[in-house]
């Protein structure tokens, strides 16, 4: 069961205010997942389209200390799901639980994998803008779904999970 699903079961009230977000990256094609607009927040329903537990997909994580972790997830699981389900030791990963409200699930992909995943929605780009150590092949782990085409891919955890909305001398205000 995906981490997100498990959380919802543990805390059903979360269903009211939070969401599972999936891109339709299962086929690697650019597609907009079904979503409803609730005023300003764009909510994605925990759609069943990505949930197909037939095949396991193997991925390798290179952690911040250089350690390589080989693990797997079900097709349709996001990379965030894999980190949570497999209890990978990445402190602070996925703080907002996959709702596009932070950049702590930032991962660096291989060029070929990045290219085949296709279109990135504005909301993800907006959060990527704030990710520390952003690269040309960066994605948010909560938005990348496992599929056959990701089999054996290697993803790198960037050096510092660090949101760019931070202190500078001007004393600029920020909210969470």
């Amino acid at each position, binding site marked *: 069961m995906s981490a997100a699903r498990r959380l919802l079961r543990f805390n059903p009230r979360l269903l009211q205010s939070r969401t599972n977000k999936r891109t339709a990256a299962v086929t690697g094609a650019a597609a907009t997942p079904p979503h409803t607009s609730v005023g300003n927040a764009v909510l994605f329903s925990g759609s069943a389209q990505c949930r197909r537990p037939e095949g396991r997909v193997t991925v390798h994580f290179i952690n911040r200390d250089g350690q390589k972790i080989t693990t797997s997830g079900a097709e349709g699981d996001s990379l965030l799901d894999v980190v949570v389900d497999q209890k990978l030791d990445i402190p602070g990963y996925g703080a907002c639980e996959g709702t596009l409200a932070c950049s702590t699930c930032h991962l660096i992909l291989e060029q070929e994998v990045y290219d085949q995943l296709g279109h990135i929605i504005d909301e993800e780009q907006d959060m990527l803008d704030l990710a520390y150590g952003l690269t040309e092949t960066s994605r948010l782990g909560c938005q990348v779904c496992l599929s056959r085409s990701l089999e054996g891919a290697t993803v790198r955890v960037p050096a510092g999970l660090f949101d760019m909305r931070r*202190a500078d001398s001007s004393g600029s205000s920020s909210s969470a």
Partner: protein
Amino acid sequence: MNAHKIVCKSHLLKLLWTSGRSDRIKRLHGVCGRAPFSSCSPKVCIVGAGPAGFYTAQHLIKSRQDVEVDIYERLPVPFGLVRFGVAPDHPEVKNVINTFTQTAQHSRCSFYGNVNVGTDVSVKELQQAYHAVVLSYGAEGNRRMGVPGEDLAGVHAAKDFVGWYNGLPDNRKLHPDLSCETAVILGQGNVALDVARILLSPMDMLKKTDITQPALDLLAESRIRRVLIVGRRGPMQIACTIKEVREMVNLPDTRPEMVAADFKGIAEAVKEVPRPRKRLTELLLKTALDVPTEKEQEKRSKASRVWGFRFFRSPVEVLPAPDLSRAAAIRLAVNRLEGSGEGASAVPTGEVEDVPCGLVISSIGYKSLPIDPLLPFDSRKAIVPNTMGRVQKTAGVYCSGWLKTGPTGVIGTTMNNSFDTARALLEDMDSGALDVSSAKPGSQGVTPLLEKRGVKPVEFSDWEKIDNEEIKRGVAMGKPREKLLSVDEMLHVART
């Protein structure tokens, strides 16, 4: 956590069985905190149960299997700005509460709410009871504009306005007057944008959030139709982030109103800047200057509410109404920019401009306050002076979160900041710089003092009663929760 309990229990049983019967009885009575295995454990106390406090606790507990952490919090309820600062329409940002809850429920973590460090117990007393004290109490004050008229009715600090709609007990009597047409917000950070968005959001959006009912009722009667968000410098120095600007652009029933001249030269300058600044500026340019699509044009022509950024303006005075009772306008100095990029500065030109308005919200920064005269405090920067989280000249005392670095940054920033402090503390334990070899009483050295002083802490399970009550009340209103608004009410629910 359960494994730890089982190990301790079996160790205890072994002790009991190997000693004589009378000894066994003696030990049974003296078990909590007196059995050899728990008196050796390092005990850390954290002051403040917001993100900084919880992330620091989390990292400590995870990194050492013997560390015990107690979190003290002034209010009966935990979570700090996640509960009282994050906007009601940003519920996903509050998901961190789940991980904080797990930490609080860990066997080696205890929450003590309703305890004011500084008045109910001193930092010195905490230092005597614990091996280390971590100050994570954030910033409960705010930066003043320092202009005449700042204290007129109709002028509020953004911190108080946000506290009001988020149910912070100290701000429940704010009763802002929303009967004017124009509101002016000074400052262009994400807090300023939150305030603008809450002032202009349609009721059918707000009523589904955990915004307090009194705020919702007042906003339903609001006559505010225009919100200006004012900054000292230009579009390329704006402090907010793109997500929040996009939310304003997409806000139903509103249209943007910017001054085209403010964007002179920006389209050229934006080509050379890093990606985050580039995308944000491009969105501003598009919103301010582009010919809108047909759909957007339709939205704008039907909109009943207006919002806009105003650049190159600094407040110099809040002007009163003729009867001097309240704010009626704000006088702004016109600036020009010296230099470019993030370091550009605003230089007054000598010109001023008066903007009629009935609500002035100053959103120019929160500010930390000192809680104990014996602790060092840098009043210029309004932080506790420290090196990597180690409070200067004060062995065994650390700090994390906004108190450590100043009041900017989001939860993710605070997370890293807190992990860093935890790492420094752990380093000091390992190296011996922090002596954890002698036993310390921990909370057992504090709770008797509190009892003597008539202070009854709220435990995490008591907070869960408050939590359940709020959710229950929320269900009746079609909201995720209806917050309890006073400390008395919170304590009443906690004690039943």
